[in-house]
Structures are given as structure tokens and as C-alpha cells.
């Protein structure tokens, strides 16, 4: 009923190839965007924006970046935190050394630095793959963690290793209150998501997927593995770097290398798995899930009158995440995104079961 597609005929290639070919989807996305840009700032409290929505958006962006690599190109990476760190520190350094540089340019340059580092650490993927590669990307994580901790140039010789950003402005507008930060992040996330969505629909996205499904066969039919893998690493680390810069600049404000450690890499990988490998929508589901679970875990026991100690709560959080990962891998390897599309298929027939 809700998803009646009959009668929606496509008479041109353009109509057939649009991102949302079904009219209901288009309307839904339009409404959602309108709500996100207008409704949320009007309704949400500062706490909601700061503690939930901004981290959710930034982590979604990082997950989109990681999904390009893991979900679309099939190269497992455990070094995402490192690329976020490169993005954040590089953007910060550009800001410190060239004070006149606009915020957006800083962030994009930060992303480009992450691209360079990502491609360098992606080179081993040309020779090794799968499990070996997963371990190799850990090298990026440990090396980058160490570099930002030990090389004082990167933190501008600050004694504690902490760096903090000054008051932000973009296009002459202040980005200081929670609402302004939210809108800034939202706009960037929309732009980059659209970009990635189009990339994965296009020729390059198909090459990535061919490499993912079977790289030997892909190279036999004329796909250059080197080009495909390195572009996947480049695009992925650019997006992740931008997300890292946003995480540092907008969400944290001041940070230390610990903000981007191995735990962050794992967290992002979990988002991609839970949300759905190879699905842009899934990244948002996964991020929402990962952001919400700790909040729920810290609030629900209190509501039930069973207050938990902080460390017990964090251990339970670990257990819940672990159990969920395994559950999803067994029961629904395509993640929450797949559940969503099943729901849509059911709605197509609703209220009749056939």
C-alpha cells in the first residue's frame, strides 16, 4: 500500500538511473532532509545536538568512508582511527601555520593529507590481501598514534600533546553554538554522502565491487587492480580524514592522540558491519546504533532502579557490542540496511501478505 510502485514508468535512462527511482523514496528523503535542516534545529535541545546528533553525523561520515574501502572494495582496514587522526592534525596544523586559511579549506586539506597517508599504507594491498592486509593496516594505526604523540612538530610543540581549536567561522558565519555546528556538519555530511553515493554507482564503484567479489577474475576482464584498490584507499581515507577533522574541530574542540586510537578504528568497523557492508544507508544506521547503545546502557538501568557503576556499564557495553557483531554476522550479514529493505518489501504488499 505504502510502497505502490505500479504506474511509475521510466521512459528515459536518466529516470532509470536516478538515486531514488521510486517516488515514495524521493518524497521521504526530501522530507527527512527538510526535517534535518529545519525541524531539528528548532526542536532539539543543546544537549541532544552536542551529545548525540553531532557525533552521530560525524561518525556516519567516517563510516561512509570506511564502507568504501571495506564494503565496496573488500579491503579490510583496522587503521581508520589513524586516518581520522591524520585528517584532524593536518587540518589543525594548516590552521595554526596559516591563520588566514578558511575553515573549510583547512578541513579539505586535512582530508587530502589523510589521502596521501592512506594511499601509502594502501600500497601493501597490491600484494597482500584479506587477513594479512587487516594486520598490515594496524601498522598505520600504531605508527600514526606514535607519530602524533612523539613528534612535537605536529602538535606545534605544545607541552601536553593536547591541541585545541580557536573559535570557528565558516564563510563569515560563526560556527560556535551547538546549532550552528550541527548545521555545518550536516551540510558537509550531505555533500560528501552524495559524492560517495554517486561514485559507487558509477564506473569506479563497479570496479571496486568487481575487485571485492574476486580480484583475479576482475583483472582478467580488464580492471586494473592497482588503480581500483588505490583509488578506494584514496577516496576512503579522504572522507575519513574529513570526518576526523570534523571530529576534532567541531565535536571535541581540543583533543589528544588518544581520541583516535585503535578503539575508534574498531568502533567504525563495527558500525559498518552492523549497519551493512556495501550500503551507504547502512552507515547511518550503524552510527546511530553505536552512538545510542552506550546512552541507553547508561540510562536504562537507572530508570529500572538498578544503578550501574561506570566501569561495569562500559564492560556490559563491550559485551553487548561483541554479542551484536556475532549475531549480525550470523543472522543478517548485510546488517541493518538489509532489515530496512526487507521492511520496505513488506510494505509494498501490506496489508496483504502475498
Amino acid at each position, binding site marked *: 500500500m505504502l510502497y505502490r510502485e505500479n504506474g511509475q514508468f521510466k521512459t528515459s535512462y536518466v529516470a532509470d538511473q536516478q538515486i531514488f527511482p521510486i517516488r515514495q523514496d524521493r518524497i521521504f528523503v526530501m522530507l527527512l532532509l527538510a526535517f534535518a535542516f529545519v525541524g531539528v534545529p528548532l526542536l532539539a535541545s543543546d544537549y541532544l545536538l552536542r551529545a548525540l546528533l553531532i557525533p552521530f553525523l560525524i561518525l556516519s561520515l567516517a563510516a561512509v568512508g570506511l564502507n568504501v574501502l571495506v564494503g565496496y572494495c*573488500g579491503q*579490510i582496514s583496522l587503521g581508520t582511527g589513524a586516518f581520522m587522526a591524520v585528517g584532524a592534525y593536518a587540518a589543525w596544523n594548516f590552521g595554526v601555520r596559516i591563520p588566514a586559511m578558511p575553515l573549510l579549506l583547512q578541513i579539505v586539506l586535512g582530508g587530502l593529507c589523510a589521502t596521501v597517508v592512506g594511499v601509502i599504507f594502501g*600500497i*601493501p594491498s597490491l*600484494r*597482500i590481501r*584479506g*587477513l*594479512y592486509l*587487516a*594486520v*598490515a593496516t*594496524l*601498522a598505520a594505526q*600504531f*605508527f600514526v*598514534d*606514535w607519530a602524533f*604523540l*612523539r*613528534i612535537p612538530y605536529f602538535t606545534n610543540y605544545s607541552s601536553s600533546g593536547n591541541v585545541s581549536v580557536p573559535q570557528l567561522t565558516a564563510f563569515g558565519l560563526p560556527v560556535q553554538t551547538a546549532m550552528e555546528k550541527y548545521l555545518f556538519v550536516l551540510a558537509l555530511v550531505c555533500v560528501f554522502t552524495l559524492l560517495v553515493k554517486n561514485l559507487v554507482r558509477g564506473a569506479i564503484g563497479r570496479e571496486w565491487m568487481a575487485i571485492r567479489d*574476486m580480484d*583475479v*577474475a576482475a583483472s*582478467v576482464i580488464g580492471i586494473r587492480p592497482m588503480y581500483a584498490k588505490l583509488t578506494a584507499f584514496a577516496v576512503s581515507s579522504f572522507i575519513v580524514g574529513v570526518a576526523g577533522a570534523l571530529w576534532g574541530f567541531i565535536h571535541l574542540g581540543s583533543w589528544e592522540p588518544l581520541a583516535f586510537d*585503535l578503539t575508534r578504528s*574498531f568502533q567504525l*568497523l563495527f558500525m559498518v*558491519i552492523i549497519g551493512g557492508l556495501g550500503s551507504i544507508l547502512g552507515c547511518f544506521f550503524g552510527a546511530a546504533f553505536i552512538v545510542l547503545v552506550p546512552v541507553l546502557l547508561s540510562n536504562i538501568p537507572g530508570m529500572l532502579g538498578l544503578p550501574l557503576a561506570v*566501569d*561495569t556499564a562500559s*564492560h*556490559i*557495553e*563491550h*559485551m*553487548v*557490542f*561483541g*554479542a*551484536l*557483531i*556475532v549475531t549480525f*554476522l*550470523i543472522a543478517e*550479514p548485510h546488517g541493518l540496511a538489509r532489515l530496512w529493505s526487507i521492511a520496505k518489501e513488506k510494505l509494498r504488499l501490506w496489508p496483504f501478505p502475498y
Partner: protein
Amino acid sequence: MGFFLETLFGGLMSGMLYALIGLGFVLIFKASGVFNFAQGAMVLVAALAMARFSEWIPRWLGFSNPLLANVLAFIVAAAVMFALAVVVEKFVLRHLVNQEATTLLMATLGISYFLDGLGQISFGSSVYSINVGMPKDPAIILDSVFDGGLLINLEDLTAAVVAALLVAALALFFQYTSTGRALRAVADDHQAAQSIGIPLNRIWVVVWSVAGLVALVAGVIWGSKFGVQFTLSTAALRALPVVILGGLTSVPGAILGGLIIGVGEKLSEVYLGSLVGGGIEIWFAYVLALVFLLFRPQGLFGEKIIDRV
């Protein structure tokens, strides 16, 4: 010269510890084709169980003999690891037969998170000590040859001997028993092994129990040296490049890789560390393994991977 040799010995000894943890990875991979990211968490849980039970059991039973307490705690901890193997097989691996290696890797990542949380909830998350009576005092040898002699840590030496014995036993088990042969068959191809009548479920329980036992030994040795705490599970991450360097399927590779990385870490920290600001131990092993993989993707003793379309 004396200092160099001391550093070398120190490296070899810590390399033996890496090899011990690395061995757990190799065992599971060799025998089931699963790259077990949870090995670190298993070491943590095993060490926590050992530390806590050696403290609890005398209290429950009302005796104070430390040797008896340690033996009982070791048995109980081994039982815990066996139970863990059964549970993992029943709830995770059984449902993931014939899946891709990367899916299995991510599943073990989930197991690792779960174990981290479970271990610390059930056993507490402070720092505990294990005292199995390993010699603590360093010994000085060859003081007639070198000025001041060579300082040898007896604790490390004991650990190395234990590790060597364990490795020898495992190598024999793999090579000469029918279970060992079945394990290798399962690693090659789940489906083929199943179709010639190898009971996959039983094999997996055996593998994970053995890996749990190795984790327990590694946990006891690491724990009595540095204390049992959460960082143990990251110590296992330090051992990952060892297996990568040695080749994922090779027991001797894990040993040799461990020794190379142990020595390389110590020497680089001592002789290069001061040049770049110290702390390069953290990534040296990884970068070494990474560079090595560029030239020999299957590691030192790994099997060459041949792909067919």
C-alpha cells in the same frame, strides 16, 4: 660488546613471549582457517581466571599452600578455557561454517570484545598478580669474559624454556596424531573435510581448547612478569606482526618471527630510539612486517597462495 649481547638476549627472551602468544594465532589458523583476533582477550581471561582462582580457592577450601593453590587454579582456569571453546563452537563457529575468512575474522573481533567485557565483569578490572614461583633474581654469567659479565633474567629464561617445550609438544601433536592430521584437513577446506567424515564441531572444540591452553600458559608467564590487567589483551596485538612475519600457517615461523621481532625491537629501541624520540617499540614490529610482506606476501614460512578463478 657485553651490552650488545645483553640487549640481544633480552630481545630473544621477549621474542619467546611474543612467539608464545603468536602460537595461539597460528594454531587456530592452521587448524581451522580462522584468524583469531580474540587470542588477546583469551590470554586476558585465562590470566585473570588464574590470578583470581589462586586467590579464591585457598579461601574457599581453607588451606594456605601456595603450590596447591596454583595447581588447582591452573586446572580451573584450563577448565574455563575448555568451556569457552565449547561455547564459541556452539554459538559462533557452528553457524559460520564455509563462510569467508574475513567474516570469520570479524566474528572473532566480536568474540574478543565480548570476552574483554565478560572477563572483567566476572573477575574484576584491577591489577592482579600471579605468583607461580618463577625465579625473580637476575643471574650474571661469563663475568670472566666480559667486563662486568652478562646480566641474564632467569624469569625470562624459564619462560623461554616453557615456551620451547610447549611448541615441541604441539609440533609433535600436529605431525603425528590422527587428530592433528584432521585439524590440518579442516584448515585446508571445511567442506572437503566434512565430506570425508571429519567431525568439524569436535575438531573446532579441540582447536580452541588447545589455543585456550596456550593462552593460559602465555597469560601465566606474562602475568607473573608484568601483572594481570587489561593491557594484556593489547599485548597480544603486539604479537600479531610475529605471525605475519613468520607466515600464518607455520609453527616454526611463529617462533622464528617472535625471535626476530623481539631482537629487532630491543636493538632498534636501544640504538635507533634515541634518534627519533623513543617509543618506536610500538610500531617497529608492524612496519618491519609490512615492509617484509611487500617482498614476500606469504611470510617467511607461509604457504604460497595460489588463486584460481
